[in-house]
C-alpha cells in the first residue's frame, strides 16, 4: 500500500503528488505516462532508492520507510530501463553469481543456481562474454535474469520490451505468467501501448507527478482525454476501428481489440464478396 506519498527532488522538482495505491499479490500492473510524469520515481520508492518526503509505503503491512535498501532488495527487484546501468561484472556468469552472493549459498549451490538461470534465459552461450559485448536486447535479458534469480516477491520492470523482438517479448510474457503463478506481483513501466492493451489487466496512468487513472486497461487506454494527458496514442486496433467508424462503417465504434476488429473485417469482407458474386 502506498499512502499519501509525495516526493520532491533536492533541486526542488516535485516528482510525486498525493500518490495513493493498493497493489495485491499476483497482480500484473502497467504504469504509463509521459516522460517526466513520475513513473520511475514512483517505482524507486518501492525498494528504498528514494524515500518519500511525505507519506508512507507498506509492504506486507510493514512500513518500509526505514527498511534498508539491502533488505528491501530481497523483496522488491527492479530491472531498469538501461540494462547497462545495473551490469558490471566481467562476465555474464559472474553477473548472476554476484546477484546470488547475499544469499550465503555454498559454491556448489551458487553454481547450480547460476547454471539454471543461464539456461532459463538462454544465456548459456554468452556465459564467458563480457556484459558490455552483448546486444541491447541480450543485456536486458541478463539484467532480468540477475534479478529473477533472487526470487523477490515484487518484480518491477522499467520498459522491459525496449529493444526486444517478438520472440523475446513472448518469452518475457511466459516468464511473467510463471512468476504470477507463484504469487509474485508484477509492475511494468511501459510506453508500449499494444503490449499493454493486449496483455496487462490493470493500468495506472500518470501525468505531472499524479495518478490520473487507475483501472482495467481496456477502459483506461480507450479514453482519448486521458491518452492525450498521458502523451500516449490509442492502440492501433482502436485507431482502425475509429477510422472505420468515421468512414461510415456501422458499429465499429464499439470495437476495441485486435480480435474484435479482425472478426468484424472478416464478416465485412465475406458479405462484400457474396454481394459481388450475386451481381
Amino acid at each position: 500500500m502506498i499512502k499519501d506519498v509525495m516526493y520532491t527532488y533536492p533541486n526542488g522538482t516535485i516528482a510525486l503528488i498525493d500518490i495513493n495505491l493498493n497493489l495485491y499479490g499476483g497482480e500484473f500492473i502497467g504504469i504509463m505516462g509521459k516522460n517526466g510524469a513520475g513513473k520511475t520515481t514512483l517505482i524507486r520508492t518501492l525498494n528504498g532508492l528514494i524515500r518519500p518526503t511525505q507519506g508512507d509505503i507498506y509492504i506486507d503491512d510493514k512500513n518500509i520507510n526505514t527498511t534498508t535498501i539491502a533488505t528491501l532488495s530481497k523483496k522488491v527487484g527492479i530491472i531498469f530501463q538501461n540494462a547497462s546501468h545495473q551490469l558490471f561484472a566481467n562476465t555474464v556468469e559472474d553477473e548472476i553469481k554476484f546477484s546470488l552472493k547475499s544469499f550465503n549459498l555454498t559454491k556448489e549451490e551458487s553454481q547450480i543456481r547460476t547454471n539454471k538461470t543461464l539456461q532459463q534465459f538462454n544465456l548459456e552461450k554468452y556465459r564467458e562474454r563480457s556484459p558490455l559485448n552483448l546486444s541491447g536486447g541480450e543485456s536486458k535479458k541478463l539484467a532480468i535474469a540477475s534479478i529473477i534469480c533472487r526470487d523477490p516477491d515484487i518484480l518491477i520492470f522499467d520498459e522491459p520490451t525496449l529493444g526486444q523482438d517478438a520472440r523475446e517479448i513472448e518469452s518475457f510474457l511466459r516468464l511473467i505468467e510463471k512468476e504470477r503463478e507463484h504469487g509474485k506481483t508484477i509492475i511494468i513501466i511501459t510506453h508500449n501501448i499494444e503490449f499493454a492493451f493486449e496483455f496487462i489487466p490493470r493500468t495506472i496512468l500518470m501525468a505531472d507527478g499524479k495518478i490520473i487513472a487507475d483501472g482495467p486497461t481496456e477502459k483506461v487506454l480507450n479514453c482519448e482525454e486521458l491518452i492525450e494527458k498521458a502523451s500516449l496514442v490509442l492502440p492501433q486496433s482502436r485507431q482502425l476501428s475509429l477510422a472505420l467508424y468515421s468512414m461510415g462503417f456501422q458499429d465499429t465504434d464499439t470495437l476495441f481489440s485486435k480480435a474484435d476488429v479482425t472478426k468484424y473485417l472478416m464478416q465485412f469482407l465475406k458479405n462484400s464478396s457474396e454481394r459481388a458474386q450475386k451481381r
Partner: protein
Amino acid sequence: MDLIRFEKFFYRYKGNEEYALNNINLRIEKEGNFVLLCGETGSGKTTLIRCMNGLIPQFYSGFYKGKVFINEVNTVETSIANLSTEVGIVFQNPENQLIAMNVEHEIAFGLENLGVPRKKIAQKIEESASLTEIEHLLDKAPFELSGGEQQRVAIASILVLEPKLLILDEPTALLDPKMARKIINLLNEIQLERKITILISEHRLDLLLPFADHMILMQNGKVIEQNTLEKVINGDNFQKLNLNKPVIYSIFMKLREENLFKGQIPSSIPDAINYLKNR
C-alpha cells in the same frame, strides 16, 4: 556511385568467437530514401551501423575481413572525423553522445573540429536548430533536457555536418509514443527537405512503416533481404522473422489466410481504410 557499399564483409568483436556480421554485401544508393533496418535481437543491426561511419573497425576492437566503402572511400583509409561529414549517426541513448556544456556548443562541436569559420558555424547552428525546433534550448545544458529534447539536439548536432546519410539506432526507444511520433515526423520532413537518405534501425515498426520506402532485413549477422517496403512486408522473410509486427499487419495477414484479402498488406491505417472503403 553508392553511398555505402559492403563487399564480403565479416566482423567479430574481440573476445567473441561468433561473427556478428557474416559476409555482408550491401549497397545503399544515393537516392534520398527512408530506409528501415529490421531484425531480431542480436541479428547485427547495431554492428552494421557502426561499420557505416568507420567506428568499426577503427574504434571497436575486433577482427574483420572484406571492405566497407563510403562514397568510394575505404573506411580504414580515412579518419572517422572525415567520414562523419558523409554519414552521421545518432545512437539509442542520446545522452551518451552529448558532451558539451550547452546545446549551442554541442551543435558547434563537430564544425569547430573541422575548422569551419565562426560566422559559418553560427549560420549552420541557426539552420539546424530551426529544423529540429530547438532554438529555445540553445543555452540549456543537455543533461537538463527531456529525452525527446536530447534526441532532437543529437539530431541537430549531426545534421549540421550535412551528412548524405543520417542513421539513427532505435531513436524512439526512450520516448513516449507522442514524442516518438513527433520525432519520426520530423525525420520525414528532414528527409524530404534535405533529400538525404535516412536509415533507421527500429523495433517499433508501427511507427515507422507509414514513412519508410525501403527496408533491409537482417538475421544472424546476414542481410537476408533488401528491397522496397512493399515487397519486403509482403514477402516470406518478413512473415517468418520474430519482429514486432504492427497490429494492421497481423489483421490483414489473418484476412489473407482466410482468403478474404489478396492485395498488398497496408503499411498504415489510411492505406487500410483506402482498401476497405473500395470493397
